[in-house]
């Protein structure tokens, strides 16, 4: 483009061309962005393109002879595969339930830790620790030492209370997964929402108190609107991670019993690495990408609406 001309550093162009200075700057600046852009292209976009390509191919590593264009064959198989629909449903249940629990609980805890009490700093630090625990560890610890129907701590506690112990992973597999993931991610919501709360200007609260607002009104009309942006960040990042939950399932239920905890990532993993069906799992992967983008669009609209509401005020 035109930047090529000035990049050579000619000093004769004169004043006719208005945007001299910015063009002078832009050329090297593009080069600064290039590595990151190229890296993401090579590692994300090109493979994504290949996934799309494979999804229209007959391609099974076990049957190397049967290659070729499959049309929408893979998608047709996918849409009639009950396991796929289970996986899709499980993914949605997992994401929505974990979002509800972590945001709700996170908000409550943020309000709690926003108050001053003895040893608050230490207590907060303990409470957020689960976020830093490796998901595989989370899975194993919960599965063995907490959820185990005989030797698990929860079973012992229930027995001590005279209740019948539950085989959590066998009878409530999805609930167990949701509990584990929420345990990891509530701290994240708590941490970010707490930072949001602490950035609330003191004078706003005082002003509304002088206006005679009660605690609930204060919360509803000052705190929540102030947290809008921050809540959005929490929901966005959490949905990205919840949509791709894998390690917790891998380490505990392996998608079972049956398909009870098979989500899309796990479904694709099984098809690719155990059925060697590249075409079918690619089609499912495209399904996962589409689902993620539906969430993305939904979230972007949500924030756009928020922004508009903000400027109207």
């Amino acid at each position, binding site marked *: 483009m035109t930047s090529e001309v000035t990049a050579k550093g000619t000093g004769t162009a004169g004043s006719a061309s208005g945007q001299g200075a910015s063009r002078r700057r832009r050329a090297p600046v593009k080069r600064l962005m290039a590595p990151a852009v190229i890296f993401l292209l090579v590692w994300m976009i090109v493979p994504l393109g290949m996934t799309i390509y494979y999804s229209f191919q007959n391609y099974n590593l076990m049957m190397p002879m049967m290659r070729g264009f499959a049309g929408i064959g893979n998608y047709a198989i996918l849409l009639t595969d009950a396991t796929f629909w289970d996986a899709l449903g499980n993914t949605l249940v997992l994401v929505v339930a974990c979002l509800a629990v972590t945001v709700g609980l996170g908000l409550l805890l943020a309000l709690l830790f926003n108050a001053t009490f003895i040893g608050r700093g230490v207590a907060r630090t303990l409470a957020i620790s689960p976020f830093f625990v*490796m998901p595989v560890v989370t899975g194993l610890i919960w599965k063995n030492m907490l959820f185990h129907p005989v030797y698990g701590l929860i079973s012992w506690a229930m027995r001590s209370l005279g209740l019948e112990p539950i085989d959590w992973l066998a009878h409530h597999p999805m609930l167990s997964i949701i509990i584990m993931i929420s345990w990891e991610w509530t701290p994240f919501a708590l941490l970010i929402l707490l930072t949001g709360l602490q950035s609330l200007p003191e004078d706003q609260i005082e002003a509304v108190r002088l206006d005679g607002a009660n605690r609930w009104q204060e919360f509803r009309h000052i705190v929540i609107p102030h947290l809008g942006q921050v809540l959005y960040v929490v929901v966005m990042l959490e949905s990205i991670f919840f949509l791709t939950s894998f390690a917790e399932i891998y380490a505990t239920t392996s998608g079972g019993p049956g398909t009870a905890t098979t989500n899309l990532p796990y479904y694709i993993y099984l098809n690719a690495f155990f059925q060697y069906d590249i075409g079918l799992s690619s089609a499912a992967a495209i399904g996962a990408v589409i689902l993620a983008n539906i969430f993305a669009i939904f979230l972007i609209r949500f924030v756009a609406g928020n922004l508009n509401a903000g400027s109207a005020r």
Partner: protein
Amino acid sequence: MNAQRSNIGLAVVGWLVALIMFFPILWMVLTAFKTEQTAFSTTPEFLFSPTLESFRTALAQGAGYWHYAFNSFFTAMVSTLLGLALAVPAAFAMAFYPSKRTDFTLVWMVSTKFIPAVGVLIPIFLIYKSLGLIDNDWGLIMLFTAMNLPIMVWMVYSYFRDVPKDIVEAADIDGASTMQTMFRVILPLALPGLASTGLLALILAWNESFWSLTMTDHNAATLAVFIASFKSAEGLFWAKMSAASVLTVTPIVVLGWFAQRQMVRGLTFGAVK
């Protein structure tokens, strides 16, 4: 008096919540110090004479802890540094020399985070296989970098945006080139922000399991793979599993304790000052 009492009430609730949240970790630590017999019992023992036996086994030659730990450390560290090396120039250009396409590029970069790993798993597996990058540290490093890059760009960008534009202009007028402005003025200024971005990337890479489990076998296997190998322990090695978990989790949890504040600042993407 009343305030005092509600304060105590709050303290009780706050500490109770903190202990409940922390309990699984505590229980893991306690179990790590038990013998296998005490670890695997129907009535949990809270008081016992601690033993280092499980740690000794976990750290023994042949158990392989050090092999996995080295891989975890190496891949997390290098991918973090590589991520910073890519993210900083890009964020710098976008924050201080925005053009018409800046917004688009930024949103595009972040939106690649919405491509789930499974969306690219198959091609990457096939490409890596043909390039011999399966079970290779560098193959893993590139994946960790790609995974963290969008978030890193955005975090660094939000830190850079807090630097007054005046300062860049002052450097411009003082005769600094774009590179000199970046290295001698902006980087030293944004160092705390870069550090917390790096810490977050390090934590995410260390805890990453999807790519480690699918792309490595032994040579490049990280601690996530090591821990996952206890998957079918079924009560036989609970103490040993706990000890290995403690060894895996402790460095990062402690790092997280110290970095919690700074990390959050960047993660809110500037929504919170």
